[in-house]
């Protein structure tokens, strides 16, 4: 555990909003001299900002490819570490009114299925899941992020979608998850790194350590993330 003080600015993927907010609170209990400031946004927007010189100390990405963009730009100070993972799941309306039991059930035109666009990680994962399961699904829409998929299902506009487990948990009573068997599922990795231009590298290191610590991992797990 490194000693830290001052302000640590954490750029984190929007899907980490709740978990990291709690981690931040817990972190400040342990490091009372440190203030944590978060900037939640899409991972790619965060990379853009960091590359443009944003005063970030820590970058927590929702997928390795955006972290790669950061390392490609030599904007990282530490090697990226996968700090947590997420599993894909099928999101359906509460009570599962359409009676979906697995990925194979999605391969029908009677259902409105939405998934992420191939450009964003969850879209690639969804495609991977379908490939693993050997089904061909024709989605009605290729959403720009996971939350859009969840929102469409919770609002009843879509019948099912491929999202992360954590998203379904965050949606609470508005949605329900249909698990995808481990055999066909994919694991989404979340890497974290201290940035090259970090104004407060000590505190940044302390924050990354805290995320990787048991305390941090416990909090992440409570939001449905899976320890790597």
């Amino acid at each position, binding site marked *: 555990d490194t000693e830290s003080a001052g302000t640590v600015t954490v750029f984190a993927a929007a899907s980490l909003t709740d978990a990291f907010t709690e981690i931040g609170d817990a972190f400040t209990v342990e490091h009372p001299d440190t203030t944590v400031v978060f900037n939640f946004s899409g991972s790619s927007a965060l990379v853009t900002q960091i590359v443009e010189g944003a005063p970030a100390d820590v970058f927590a990405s929702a997928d390795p490819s955006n972290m790669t963009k950061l390392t490609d730009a030599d904007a990282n100070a530490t090697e990226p570490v996968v700090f947590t993972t997420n599993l894909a799941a099928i999101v359906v309306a509460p009570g599962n009114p359409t009676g979906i039991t697995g990925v194979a059930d999605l391969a029908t035109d009677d259902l409105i299925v939405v998934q992420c666009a191939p450009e964003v990680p969850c879209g690639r994962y969804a495609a991977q899941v379908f490939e693993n399961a050997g089904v061909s699904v024709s989605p009605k829409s290729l959403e*720009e992020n996971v939350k859009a998929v969840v929102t469409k299902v919770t609002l009843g506009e879509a019948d099912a979608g491929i999202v992360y487990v954590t998203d379904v948990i965050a949606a609470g009573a508005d949605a329900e998850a249909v698990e995808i068997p481990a055999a066909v599922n994919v694991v989404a990795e979340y890497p974290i790194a201290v940035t090259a231009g970090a104004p407060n590298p000590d505190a940044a290191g302390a924050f990354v350590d805290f995320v990787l610590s048991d305390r941090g991992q416990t909090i992440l797990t409570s939001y449905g993330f899976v320890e790597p």
Partner: protein
Amino acid sequence: MTRARPRGRRVGLPVPVLVLACVAIVFFALPLVGLLWRTPWADAWTYLADDDVLTALRLSLVCSLWATALSLVFGVPLAWLLARVEFAGRGIVRALCTLSMVLPPVVGGVALFAALGRRGLVGEYLDRWFGITLPFTTAGVVVAQTFVAMPFLVITVESALRQLDTRFDDASRTLGATRWYTFRRVTLPAIRPALVAGAVLSWARALGEFGATITFAGNFPGTTQTMPLAVYLSLETNTDEAIVLALVLITISFAVLIGLRDHWFGRPDRLQGTATA
């Protein structure tokens, strides 16, 4: 003699005003120059050759033109109502019109769902009785774009109507023209600058519309993926491609706006000195 200044230098505007205007121009020009500066010209062509891009472009143009047309058809009457009829709740109606400008983009889509979605207030019956579903269709894109674009038309046209001298309407009606004929032949031509400005604003807004569209209509190449969505998604993987695609959008709107010529924005700066009121 001291106050005389050479004619060549008569700019027509006070210097401080010119300075402010130039700052504004620079403010608008800089980001474009910045974008151009960042554009990877070498690869530009490869990004553009993509079929999906052309599809998205066509869809963007078609939908934004439809949205502009719908905005004109419904927005001009609404502006007329707001400008010329005194009724309780006029302020509320006007505020309603600006609603979609204030709504954060995604919420706009959520609101459209609540109204016109499968489970929406009206959408449910549209679906059940007429079999019309808007979400995830091209029509949905048009609806979303109209929703965000129409306010510009309404507000612009209303203010022009209020500025207009209604005595010309009087003159027209005594000549036997109904309110409707008067509106078409006297009022509308007189506010043409505002009409064009409003339509341009609406069209530009529709062309650039992103949030409500992706939420309400989704993103599917060929049916609902417009250029802004394509740009947004390519930003996820490749900023360079995104910049090139954005430049295409910019080029098109530039072409249209410059093509429109000054003429359409209003009467040419006429030399005054005549007497008609």
